[in-house]
C-alpha cells in the first residue's frame, strides 16, 4: 500500500480541482451563514457581553485628577494637588469604596469638606492622562485639558471609574459568605433531588417497561403532565399543603416547607418526566436476548436485575441523572417561590439583578452557575453518544410475561407516583377556586380576575399564548431549516461544524444566564439592536434560542433518517434543493416538525428563567405573572394562572395530537403499505 501511496500525485495547488459551486451550494451556504449569524447575535455575543461584564472591574483612580483651589478672590495661589494626595491625607473616601460598578460616579465635593456652593471659591480641574473622564451634570469630558468651575458648578462634577479586567469580582464573590454559601446549597439540593428523582423515575419506567400491569398508557400520560406547568407551580401547591396555613403542616413535624424540603419535593415533581422518559427509552432498547440468557442460566431475579437490567440501562440512568441535576441547579422559579431564606445560585442572580440592581455581581454568579451546568451538559452529551451506539446495535425487544404479584406491586407503585403528581396539580386547581383559603372554602372564580392583580392580568396570558405561537412557528422554521443545512450541505466542513457547535450550545446555558446576557447585550444603547429591548421580539428570540438544542436534535434525527441520495437525484434532475425540500423533505419530516412546534410552544408557555429579565410592562407573561402574583402574596391567583398555563398546554397537546393524526392521514398515506 505504502509503495502506491508514494506514487501520489504531485498535488500542487493548481493541479488540485477546485469544485465550482452550484447555485444550490451558494444558497445553502449563504443561508447557513445567515442562521449562524442569528445564533451568534442571539447567543454568542450576549454571552460574551455577560462574561466580559463578569471579569470587568471598575475603580476610581484618584491619581488621574488634579485640582487647584482659588482663594475667595478667585486667585489660584495654592499649589494643585491630585485627588490621591488629598485622600491620602484625610481619607475622605475609604479605599474599599473606590471599587465601583461600571456606572459608578464619585462627586469631587467629597474631597473638600469645607465646600459650599455659595462660596466664591473657584476650582481648576485637570485630568492627568487621556483616560481621565469626568462629568459635569450629564456632559462628559475626557483628557488632560484643564477646566475651571465656580462653586455652584463644581458640586455637579463627578469623576468616572476606569475599567480593567480580572478576577476582582470573583474575589468579592468568594469573600461574601452569603453569596458563596449558595454554591453549596445549590449543589446539595441538586444532588438530593437527582438521587430521589432518578430512583423514582427508574421504578416507574421499569414498571411501564417490564410489567404487564394495566393502565400503562394512563400512567405515561400522568407522568408527563409536570412538563406542562411552570416549575414554580409545585412550589405553590406545597405552600398550600404544608405552608403556614397548610392543612398538612403537622406532617412536617416542625420543619418548614420553605427551604430545602420544599425545593427538593418540587424539583422531584418537575424533573420527574424528564428522567422517566430518558430511562424508559434506555430500558426499552436493552436487548431481550440477554434476559433469555439470564433465565437459561437460572440467574435469580435479583441477580438478573443487577447484572443485566442496570448495566443495560446505565447510559440512560447517567444521562437522566445529569439532566435532572442540570434542571434543578439552573431552575429559578421553584426556589424563588418556596426557597424562603435558603439561597440558591439561580435565585441569587435574580436578587442581584432585580433586587439590588447589581448587574455585575449577577454576571459573576452566572459564571459560577455556568460551571456545573456545563459539566452536566458535557457528560450528558458524551453518554448520549454512547447510548446511540448501543441503539444501533440493538436487536430483540423485550416482551414481559404476566406475573400477578409483580404486576400488582408495579401497579401500586405507579398509582402512588401518579397520585403525587395529580394531587400537586389538584391542590393548585382547588386553591385557585377557593374564595379565601383557609377561612372561606366555598368555590368561585374571583381568583381568575387577574386584571385586578399585579402581574399583568389577562393580557399576560394573551401575551404568553402569542409568545408560544410565535416561538413555535418562527422557531420551527429556523431550527428545521438550520438542521437541514447542517445535514445536507456538501463540503464546507468547518462552517457546518461551527454551526453545529452553536446549535448545541444553548442546552448548556441556564435560562437565567441567557436572560442576563440579553440584558447586557441588547440593553446597551450602543447596540443597533437595542430597539428590540422590551418588545415581544426579544422574548421570542430568547425563547427560541433557549430551547434551540433539543429542537435541533429532533430535526437532525429526522433528517438523518431520510435517504442521503435524494439530493444527488434532485441535482441530476436539475431541480434546486428548495424544491426537493418543500416537496419531499418537509412532508416526510412533518411528524418531527410538529413535535418541534409543540415542544417550543409548551416551553414558551412555562418558561420563567430567561424571560423574567426581559419582559416589559407591555409584554408581561403568564408564567412571570405566576411568579409576581406569588411574590405579592396573591397566591391563589398565582395558582389559578399556573393552572391556566396547564390547561392551555393540555389543549395545545390535544390539538397537536389531532393535527398530527390528520396530517399523517392526509400526507403520509405512503407510510402504510
Amino acid at each position, binding site marked *: 500500500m505504502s509503495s502506491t501511496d508514494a506514487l501520489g500525485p504531485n498535488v500542487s495547488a493548481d493541479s488540485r480541482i477546485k469544485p*465550482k459551486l452550484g447555485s444550490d451550494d451558494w444558497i445553502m451556504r449563504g443561508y447557513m451563514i445567515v442562521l449562524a449569524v442569528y445564533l451568534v447575535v442571539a447567543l454568542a455575543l450576549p454571552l460574551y457581553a455577560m462574561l466580559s461584564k463578569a471579569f470587568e472591574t471598575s475603580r476610581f483612580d484618584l491619581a488621574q485628577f488634579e485640582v487647584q483651589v482659588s482663594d475667595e478672590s478667585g486667585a489660584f495661589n495654592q499649589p494643585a494637588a491630585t485627588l490621591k494626595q488629598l485622600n491620602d491625607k484625610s481619607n475622605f473616601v475609604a479605599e474599599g469604596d473606590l471599587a465601583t460598578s461600571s456606572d459608578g460616579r464619585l462627586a469631587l465635593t467629597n474631597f473638600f469638606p469645607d465646600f459650599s456652593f455659595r462660596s466664591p471659591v473657584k476650582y481648576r480641574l485637570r485630568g492627568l492622562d487621556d483616560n481621565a473622564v469626568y462629568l459635569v451634570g450629564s456632559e462628559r469630558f475626557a483628557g488632560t485639558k484643564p477646566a475651571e468651575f465656580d462653586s455652584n458648578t463644581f458640586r455637579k462634577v463627578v469623576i468616572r471609574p476606569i475599567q480593567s479586567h480580572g478576577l476582582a469580582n470573583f474575589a468579592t464573590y468568594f469573600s461574601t459568605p452569603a453569596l458563596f454559601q449558595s454554591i453549596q446549597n445549590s449543589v446539595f439540593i441538586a444532588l438530593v433531588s437527582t438521587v430521589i428523582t432518578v430512583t423514582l423515575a427508574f421504578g416507574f419506567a421499569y414498571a411501564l417497561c417490564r410489567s404487564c400491569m394495566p393502565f400503562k398508557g394512563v400512567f405515561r400520560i400522568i407522568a408527563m403532565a409536570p412538563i406542562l406547568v411552570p416549575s414554580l407551580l409545585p412550589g405553590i401547591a406545597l405552600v398550600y399543603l404544608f405552608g403556614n396555613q397548610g392543612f398538612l403542616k403537622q406532617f412536617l413535624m416542625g420543619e418548614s416547607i420553605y427551604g430545602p424540603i420544599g425545593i427538593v419535593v418540587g424539583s422531584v415533581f418537575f424533573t420527574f418526566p424528564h428522567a422517566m422518559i430518558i430511562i424508559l427509552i434506555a430500558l426499552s432498547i436493552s436487548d431481550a436476548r440477554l434476559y433469555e440468557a439470564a433465565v437459561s442460566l437460572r440467574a435469580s431475579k435479583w441477580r438478573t436485575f443487577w447484572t443485566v437490567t442496570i448495566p443495560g440501562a446505565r447510559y440512560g440512568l447517567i444521562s437522566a441523572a445529569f439532566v435532572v441535576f442540570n434542571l434543578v441547579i439552573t431552575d429559578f422559579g421553584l426556589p424563588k417561590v418556596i426557597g424562603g431564606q435558603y439561597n440558591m445560585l439561580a435565585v441569587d442572580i435574580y436578587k442581584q439583578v432585580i433586587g439590588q440592581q447589581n448587574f455585575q455581581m449577577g454576571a459573576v454568579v452566572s459564571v459560577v452557575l455556568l460551571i456545573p451546568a456545563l459539566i452536566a451538559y458535557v457528560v450528558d452529551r458524551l453518554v448520549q453518544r454512547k447510548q446511540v451506539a448501543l441503539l444501533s446495535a440493538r436487536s430483540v425487544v423485550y416482551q414481559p410475561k404476566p406475573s400477578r404479584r409483580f404486576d400488582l406491586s408495579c401497579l401500586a407503585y405507579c398509582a402512588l407516583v401518579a397520585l403525587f403528581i395529580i394531587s400537586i396539580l389538584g391542590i393548585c386547581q382547588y386553591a385557585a377556586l377557593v374564595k379565601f383559603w383557609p377561612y372561606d372554602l366555598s368555590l368561585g372564580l374571583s381568583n381568575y380576575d387577574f386584571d385586578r392583580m399585579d402581574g399583568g392580568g389577562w393580557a399576560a396570558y394573551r401575551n404568553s399564548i402569542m409568545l408560544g405561537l410565535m416561538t413555535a412557528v418562527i422557531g420551527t422554521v429556523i431550527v428545521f431549516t438550520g438542521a437541514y443545512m447542517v445535514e445536507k450541505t456538501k463540503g464546507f466542513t468547518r462552517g457546518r461544524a461551527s454551526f453545529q457547535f452553536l446549535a448545541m450550545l444553548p442546552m448548556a446555558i441556564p435560562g437565567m444566564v441567557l436572560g442576563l446576557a440579553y440584558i447586557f447585550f441588547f440593553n446597551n444603547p450602543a447596540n443597533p439592536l437595542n430597539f428590540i429591548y422590551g418588545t415581544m421580539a426579544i422574548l421570542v428570540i430568547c425563547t427560541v434560542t433557549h430551547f434551540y438544542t433539543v429542537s435541533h436534535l429532533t430535526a437532525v434525527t429526522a433528517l438523518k433518517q431520510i435517504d442521503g441520495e435524494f439530493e444527488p437525484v434532485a441535482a441530476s*434532475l436539475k431541480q434546486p434543493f428548495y424544491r426537493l425540500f418543500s416537496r419531499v423533505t418537509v412532508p*416526510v419530516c412533518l411528524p418531527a416538525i410538529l413535535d418541534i412546534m409543540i415542544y417550543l410552544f409548551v416551553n414558551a408557555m412555562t418558561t420563567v428563567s430567561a424571560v423574567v429579565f426581559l419582559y416589559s410592562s407591555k409584554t408581561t407573561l403568564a408564567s412571570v405573572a405566576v411568579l409576581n402574583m406569588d411574590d405579592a402574596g396573591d397566591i391563589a391567583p398565582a395558582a389559578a394562572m399556573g393552572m391556566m398555563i396547564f390547561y392551555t398546554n393540555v389543549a395545545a397537546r390535544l390539538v397537536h395530537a389531532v393535527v398530527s393524526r390528520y396530517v399523517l392521514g392526509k400526507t403520509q398515506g405512503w407510510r402504510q403499505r
Partner: protein
Amino acid sequence: MGQASTAETYLKIENVWKAFGDFYALKDISLEVRRSEFVCFLGPSGCGKTTLLRAIAGLDIQTTGSVFQDGQDISALPPSERDFGIVFQSYALFPNLTVEKNIAFGLENSGIARPDIEKRVAELLELVGLPEQAKKYPAQLSGGQQQRIALARAIAMSPGLLLLDEPLSALDAKVRVHLRHEVKDLQRKLGVTTIMVTHDQEEALAMADRIVVMNHGVIEQVGSPTDVYREPVSLFVADFIGETNQLDCEAGMKGKGIRVGKQTLASAPHTHTDGQQVIAVIRPEDIIPHGDGARSTGAPEEISEPGNTVETTVDEMEFLGSFWRTRLSSPDLGTGQIVADFSVNAVRRMEIQVGGRMRIEIPSQRLKVFAATAEPEK
C-alpha cells in the same frame, strides 16, 4: 462489438486521483467511454467503483485529474450543471410522492406543458413495463418495481449519461437476472451511454459492452466481457472473474511454458525467465477430457497438443445440471487438485467416474502465466 459506427469518445477520464485524507481511493484513473456504450465498473468491495462514479457525477469531485463529457471539460462542475441520470442501490424514490410524481419530478419544473409531462410519464412507465402503477406510492411496490421506477425517473429527462450504482444488488436473485435483461434492452433501445457499478461479475459479463476491472483504486483491465474473461491481464482479473485453477509453478521453455512437478507444459507466451516462481492459471471449462484409452469404447479423442496432457485420478464429481464439475489430482502436478468442467455428453461417452483415471489436455493458449505476487504492482 457492433458499436463501430458510434465509436466516438463520449466520456473521457484523465489521470483522476481521489484522496480521502491520506488515503487514495482512486489512483491515476484514465478511461474512455464511447457514445452509447454500456460500461461496467467491476471490482471487490472498497476498490473505488462508487468513488469513481461519484466523481463522474460531480457528487464527490476528484482531487486531481479531469473529466470530459461530450468534449466539454466538466471536471469542476457541480452535479446540477452536468448531464446525467442516476440510479442508486437504495432506489432513492421520494416516499411521499406517487410513482408518476416521482417520474415527473424533473420534468415538472422545466417548462414542459402538463399534458406533455403526462404523456412522457405514461411513455416511461410503458417503457419500464409498469403502466398500471402510476398512482401507487413507492412503498406499495416490490423492490424490482421500485428499481424500475427509479430507472424511469433517471431517464425521464433524456440524459446523455446514465449512471447506475449497484442498481440490482438489493434485489433477490431471480428478479435480478430478469431485470438485467430489461435494463440492457432499455439501454440499447435508448442508446444512452451507461456506466454501471457492480461487484457481481456475472452481472457485468451479461450486461456490459466493456468491463472496467478495478482493484485498490486502480484499473486492472478494460475490455469486452470475452476479453477480460479469456485474456485476463493479471492474476487478480483472472481470479476475480470466473473460476480458475491456479498452479504454483516455475516458468520454463523460455517464455513459452511452465514446469510443474515433474512435468513441463506449454503455455501462452509470457515474459518470465525460466525458473522464476509463477502462477499458471487455467479455467475449468478449458480443460479437455480424454478417456483413459483402455476403457473407452469409441475411437480415442484426437489430442491436439500431445505434450500438454496430464494423467489424473478422478477424486470427486458433482453434477451441476448442464455439466459435471470434476476434481482431479495428479502426482505430476504436485499436491493440489484441479477442477475441470466436463460436458454431460463427454462424461457419458468416456465413462468418467470417481476413482477412475483419465488423461486431460491443457490447451497451451488457455494456460496463462502470471508473476507469483498476489497483488500486481501498477
